[in-house]
């Protein structure tokens, strides 16, 4: 071929490629779903905050990072409303209704509950799914857990009976008293028996029975078998998605997942979108970009600065706010002086201006913490009386008070304004944060400025990644660092975060045991506190919370809140708000601010409840 011909051939190929490109899909991803799709509601585009999407990951909800999307193609009997005053409050899922009893739970399945292959959801599906929960660490005392099971955390099922007509009785193990049995069972992932039962041995319930039995050797053998089964199940890669949810996974590309509406879904008339596209993302910036370009119908919580918020609102999005039950705090390692002294921690709380720090760290999704009680502000308001709240120290910025506390603890200030430790050496602080937590990093700068201006030279330091942060924190390498606390909405979990393993407490047969030498104890607080003249055991109170009905928790919470507020194992800086966004460009009737229970769930759950309608 001559050079001339080669050139012509090359040009022809380029033209063909250009034509091909022009024939392909539009350059800007739209939600119109093509001609005629609008009648069907079109394509709903969003992001699954708990699932970044990886091509090659299995369509198996039991995998650690699956291509399975809760509320869309991953179903439960019910969906948690995250109601702090009633932890057993759920939206109906595959269960249309349920009744709790002393024996356990009676569930009525949705009358038309079907899988995407057209077959009905049966008792066998529920039984297989609950058996799988025993292999996945969400039910029963699973081998390898390495700790004693606390009543109220894992569910224990002894029998599942088919009462006919889609009614199922799920019995709790006799003697087990789990306050959250209903929520835990209803929140279990339900999978198709025909797809998953082949992975389970025929004697699976005999194994589960052995685990629950008193013969320790038999229980250990059975536990080992369940653990081995757990590995097989987690690695399982079904060839095709069989979903009982409103959507079924059609395909997963490296950048997106495509789900089609499940024509057999029990409430398909409520599901407006014909398809759902879930976008892959690696960080906040991408989500911001998708929204400023108007490409998402709704977005999950994303931390952002105010200028990005303005751009997103300008792009036509409406903001929604829901409580997040998470607090950003500065925690201490009390094994390292001078943080073993309560007045020191109290002085630091008086120096840090939480309003100013929040304005920089989390201006959109943060509310300055009104109290340090171990709970977010609204929970403190709900559980404490006005008198109890009035007795709390708000730790308002007060340099004089801070100076007085420090002087009382033997600290001195030199002529240059620098504070010195009681041994005379200059007091410096390294405030540890972690790469990727942009809000903590930004906030650290302000905290450091405030402390340095007060006379305590403070330097923010960033750990490379979270795995390293946890490792080094547990190893006691950080004296002062950021930490997420107030993890609710269950109050026992919020307090377990402070007075749990990170603080040397473990629960053995309902009793709290404190170990200052535990490998994961990095806070090193004392085993007991003296509050208002009374000695309290925060670990035991936390353990008691997990077996106390919410209605009876107030006296326990009052003690824990007062102790936490006085002793400050950490200083709560801001409480997060779950800020979400939606646009009504393609769909309407989105849940608004105030609909907390819905907003804390995925859009698939909104749709099941009749929200998100075609325009």
């Amino acid at each position, binding site marked *: 071929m001559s050079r001339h011909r080669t050139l012509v051939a090359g040009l022809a190929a380029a033209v063909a490629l250009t034509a*091909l*490109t*022009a*024939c*392909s*899909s539009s*350059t*800007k991803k739209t939600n119109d779903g*093509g001609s005629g799709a609008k009648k069907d509601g079109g394509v709903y585009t969003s992001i699954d905050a708990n699932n970044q999407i*990886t*091509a*090659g*990951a*299995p369509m198996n909800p*039991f*995998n*650690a*990072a699956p291509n399975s999307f809760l509320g869309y193609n991953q179903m439960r009997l019910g969906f948690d409303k995250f109601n702090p005053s009633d932890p057993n409050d759920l939206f109906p899922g595959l269960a249309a209704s349920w009744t709790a009893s002393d024996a356990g739970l009676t569930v009525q399945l949705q009358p038309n509950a079907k899988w995407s292959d057209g077959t009905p959801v049966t008792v066998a599906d529920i039984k297989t799914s609950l058996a799988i929960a025993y292999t*996945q*660490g*969400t039910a029963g005392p*699973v081998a*390898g*857990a390495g*700790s*004693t*099971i*606390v009543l109220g*955390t*894992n569910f224990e099922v002894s029998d599942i009976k088919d009462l006919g007509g889609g009614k199922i009785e799920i019995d709790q193990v006799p003697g087990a008293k789990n306050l959250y049995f209903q929520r835990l069972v209803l929140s279990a992932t339900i999978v198709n028996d025909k797809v998953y039962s082949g992975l389970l041995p025929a004697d699976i319930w005999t194994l589960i029975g052995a685990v629950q039995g008193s013969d320790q050797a038999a229980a250990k053998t059975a536990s080992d078998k369940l*653990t081995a089964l757990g*590995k097989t199940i*987690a*690695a399982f890669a079904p060839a095709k998605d069989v979903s009982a949810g409103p959507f079924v996974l059609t*395909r997963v*590309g*490296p*950048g997106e*997942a*495509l789900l089609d509406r499940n024509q057999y879904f029990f409430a398909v008339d409520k599901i407006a979108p014909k398809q759902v*596209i879930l*976008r*892959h*993302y*690696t*960080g906040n910036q*991408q989500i911001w*970009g998708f929204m400023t370009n108007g490409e998402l119908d709704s977005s999950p919580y994303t931390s952002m600065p105010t200028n990005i918020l303005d751009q997103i609102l300008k792009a036509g999005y409406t903001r929604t706010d829901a409580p997040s039950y998470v607090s950003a705090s500065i925690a201490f390692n009390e094994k390292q002086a001078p943080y073993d002294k309560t007045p020191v921690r109290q002085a630091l709380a008086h120096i840090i201006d939480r309003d100013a720090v929040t304005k920089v760290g989390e201006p959109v999704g943060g509310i300055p913490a009104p109290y340090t009680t171990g709970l977010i502000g609204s929970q403190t308001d709900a559980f404490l009386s006005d008198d109890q709240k009035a007795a709390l120290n708000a730790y308002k910025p007060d340099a004089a008070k801070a100076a007085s506390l420090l002087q009382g603890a033997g600290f001195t200030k030199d002529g240059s304004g620098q504070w010195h430790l009681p041994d005379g050496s200059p007091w410096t602080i390294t405030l540890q944060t972690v790469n990727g937590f942009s809000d903590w990093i930004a906030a650290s700068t302000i905290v450091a400025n405030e402390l340095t201006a007060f006379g305590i030279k403070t330097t923010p330091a960033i750990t490379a*990644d*979270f*795995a*390293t942060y*946890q*490792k080094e924190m547990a190893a006691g390498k950080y004296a002062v660092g950021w930490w997420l606390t107030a*993890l609710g909405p269950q109050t*026992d*979990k919020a307090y*377990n975060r402070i007075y*749990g393993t990170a603080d040397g407490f473990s*629960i053995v047969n309902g009793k709290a045991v404190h170990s200052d030498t535990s490998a994961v104890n990095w806070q090193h607080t004392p085993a007991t506190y003296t509050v208002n003249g009374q000695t309290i055991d925060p670990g035991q109170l936390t353990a008691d919370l997990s077996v106390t009905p919410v209605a009876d928790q107030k006296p326990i919470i009052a003690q824990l809140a007062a102790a936490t507020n006085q002793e400050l194992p950490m200083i709560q800086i801001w409480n997060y708000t779950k800020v979400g966004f939606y646009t009504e460009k393609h769909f309407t009737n989105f849940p608004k601010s105030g609909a907390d229970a819905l907003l804390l769930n995925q859009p698939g759950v909104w749709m099941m409840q009749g929200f998100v309608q075609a325009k």
Partner: protein
Amino acid sequence: MTGFARRLAGKLLAGLVMVWVVVTFTFFLVHALPGKPGDVQYESYIMQGFSPEEARAKVAAVYGFTSHDPLLGQYLGYLGKLLRGDLGESTYYSGVPVSHLISSALPWTVLPVLSGLVVSFLIGVVAGVVAAVKRSSRWGGLLSVSGSLVAGVPSFVLALLLLLVFHTEWHLLPDAGTSDITLEPGWSPAYVGSVVQHAVLPVVSYALLSYGGWLLAMKSSVVTVLGDDFILASELRGLAPVTRARYIGRNAILPLFTVLALSFGVMFAGSFFIEQTFDYPGLGELLLKSIGVRDYPVMAGAFLLITVAIIAANIVADLCYTLIDPRVRR
């Protein structure tokens, strides 16, 4: 055995030794990272409302693929598996074969990087020749400046600029993804067109990033060759300009050939910044994510792929160099 076969066998043997050394080094290096598989997932479960006991039990279940054997035993087991062509099982993805994860990500790195490399090489080399030959003219100077400018721009700045212009402002090209997910994958014109369309910005980014390097290297090489005696002699002998250009090109491109061959190997590392900016998930992202979650088998597998690719490219470059430059064979 012929000389070529001997050379090939020698290089392959040396390559194997090098692969073993790198594999050993990376195996112990990744295990030396602080933190362990499951640490991050544990925190994620806590954030999702699990109690510490539940979260630990769940991590123990889904991270059951984390080996608890002594490190030396793990290393020997890993080598044994490698010899059988088995890269092991991911811990983060609960037992999914590493080869499956890598092969799923690989095309989305090779496609844009290879295309970008070829495009930038062709344009950069031609522009480099022009910049050298016309180095005293305004055009030559402009070309050289363009190479220096582009070579100095960081990848994420360049990618963001392209995104701003071609997607946000002009709506000409998609901002993210590898194709339109609503299209059935296959060889249909619509799907292939969509893949091409989505690849344009990443390819242009990769091409622009390396264009400057090729241009400047080629210019420098051509200028050196232009000063050689044999070029002066060819001019004095009255050889046609086309013939002289062929002499110049063949001699000047030799140093670039080695770099090109090595670039084919390096491309398997991908570029996280470009993959992230265009949400074009390839090996770069898989590797970075696996580091974040301490997925040792995926990290080791990705490093192995990069190592083997670079060593193979090196061997191919060495062997081909002897073919294209007869002086090396003497």
